[in-house]
């Protein structure tokens, strides 16, 4: 199994790309590094989402519910008691996992759009909670966190890159493992998968927990990179939409493609920023073209071309 993963070219290309990316701080500006740091965290968000969407076949409209839980739990804890950062990050991750289980257990009984709506409602409720409990969460103004991961751009960049690489490897490995295959089968034909003796609900729940783990961890780390948390950066539905678009244009069911899509999206958004409102329009239009004409995304296109030749 491990050998088969090592033999697939995707993993070697990814490794080379990561090594090249690791040398970037030597010759690009701090501005670009900051942008990429954010993009890498979004990459993890999208990869975690793809595990649910691509493999478990569940549209989670609320990736930001998990991200926000992780980010805000870590941020609030740090704000109140200033424990070491890793304690906060751990707490944030656990909160996301617990929240994910609470959300998923009943929600997995629901199908398709009903599941999607429940996850969307979870985001709206969390958003309302943050605004209403302003004393604790900073409300609409946002929460400032006293500690940061590092004050050095380069260190922050390497942490984000390393984190994305490890998460990517873990999620990719999982998706190609026997468990990942069962998950894929459960997503595509739950009835048949159950008839073959696999516990569909258990596998989907496990996928949700893994997705929540990485989303929460990434959210918590990103808080300590930004030094602040706000509804607009972690919870708002538009953030969730960005995570979703990244995963879809990168390529469904590819995990690594999701990260590429998310990084591309952040970079595009920043490049087009001078255009103001038109920037979002162009990015959405491009994403729509990808969805309509190349439904398997960037990575899917390349994979198909390789199969054809």
């Amino acid at each position, binding site marked *: 199994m491990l050998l088969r993963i090592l033999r697939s070219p995707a993993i070697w290309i990814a490794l080379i790309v990561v090594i090249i990316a690791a040398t970037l701080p030597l010759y690009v500006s701090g501005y670009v590094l900051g942008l990429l740091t954010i993009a890498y965290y979004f990459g993890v968000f999208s990869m975690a989402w793809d595990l649910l969407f691509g493999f478990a076949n569940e549209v989670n409209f609320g990736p930001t519910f998990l991200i926000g839980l992780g980010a805000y739990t870590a941020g609030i804890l740090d704000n109140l008691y200033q424990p070491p950062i890793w304690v906060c990050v751990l707490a944030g991750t656990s909160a996301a996992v617990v929240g994910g289980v609470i959300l998923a257990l009943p929600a997995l009984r629901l199908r398709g759009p009903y599941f999607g709506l429940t996850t969307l409602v979870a985001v709206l409720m969390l958003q309302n909670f943050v605004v209403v409990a302003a004393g604790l969460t900073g409300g609409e103004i946002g929460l400032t966190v006293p500690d940061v991961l590092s004050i050095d751009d380069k260190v922050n960049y390497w942490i984000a890159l390393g984190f994305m690489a490890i998460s990517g490897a873990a999620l990719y490995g999982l998706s190609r493992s026997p468990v990942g295959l069962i998950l894929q089968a459960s997503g595509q034909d739950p009835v048949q998968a159950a008839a073959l003796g696999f516990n569909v609900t258990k596998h989907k729940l496990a996928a949700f927990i893994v997705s929540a783990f990485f989303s929460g961890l990434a959210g918590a780390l990103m808080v300590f990179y930004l030094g602040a948390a706000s509804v607009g950066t972690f919870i708002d539905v538009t953030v969730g939409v960005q995570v979703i678009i990244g995963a879809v244009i990168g390529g469904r069911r590819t995990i690594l493609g999701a990260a590429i899509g998310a990084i591309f999206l952040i970079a595009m958004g920043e490049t087009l920023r001078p255009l103001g409102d038109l920037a979002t329009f162009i990015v959405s239009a491009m994403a729509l073209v990808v969805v309509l004409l190349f*439904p398997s995304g960037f990575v899917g296109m390349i994979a198909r071309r390789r199969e054809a030749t």
Partner: protein
Amino acid sequence: MLLWQILIDGFAISSLYALGATGFTLIFGVSGVLNLSHGSLMVAAAVAAWALGASFGGSYVGAIFGALVALLLSVVTYFLVVRPLQQTKRIREEEKEIFILTATLLWGIMIQEAIAYLFTNNAKTVLPIVGGVVTIAGVRTPANEIFTAAICWLAIGALWLLVNRTQVGKTVLAASMNPRGVTLLGVELSIVYIAVWAIYGILAGIAGVLLGMFLGVSSYSAGPLTASAFSIVVLGGLGSVSGSLIAAYVVGYLETLTAYLASPAYRTIPALLLLVVVMYIRPRGLLGRR
């Protein structure tokens, strides 16, 4: 006094929700599409009515123009976004739903951003068609609020007549029950779909223009409007029109009650809680069909 105020205000906003959700559920019932660009369509109609009303001063002309814009956009949505995905062979049948959701979401964002670019993000209030204030049971109510509720019910009534009493409506109904059977009877299914999207566009347009008069809209309203239509329709049961109507009133009154008795800031919370509870107890919604 307060009770009457809540009853009257709640009735107007609920009627508006009902009209918005009816079109949304119609599209789902007939073609199985959840159109996530719904809110953007409503906002586009309101902004069009506002722009024309402001430059020509005719609120009637503006309102009709707004509904026409929504009609046009709705048909474009069908041809540009929904139809290509429904007919493509590159996406597996069971995955199409997810792709249509994503694509209509993106399309909605595009409309929303185009509006923001052309007309800025500022909130716009469409000139009311009926001016003045009437007093009902001691509550001073803008006459336009009553007009809004009346138009909503007229539109819903017209839709009911159309579906149940005309040949077109019966064909649409049949297509929602058994598309293959209708094709075998010699009906071109695409024409049915175009008709449904056109009807949906007009309904969403009317709802959007009325909302623009009642509460005002900005490009930011698109997302929340889609979300509220989505939750009302799911609460009532996907595909069930009467369920949507009941759910619209439940949500509308819950929101008004909360806004008056607690605080406008908490407006949406009880409705969301109710939705979660209903989802867990009755996953198919109040009147959902199995």
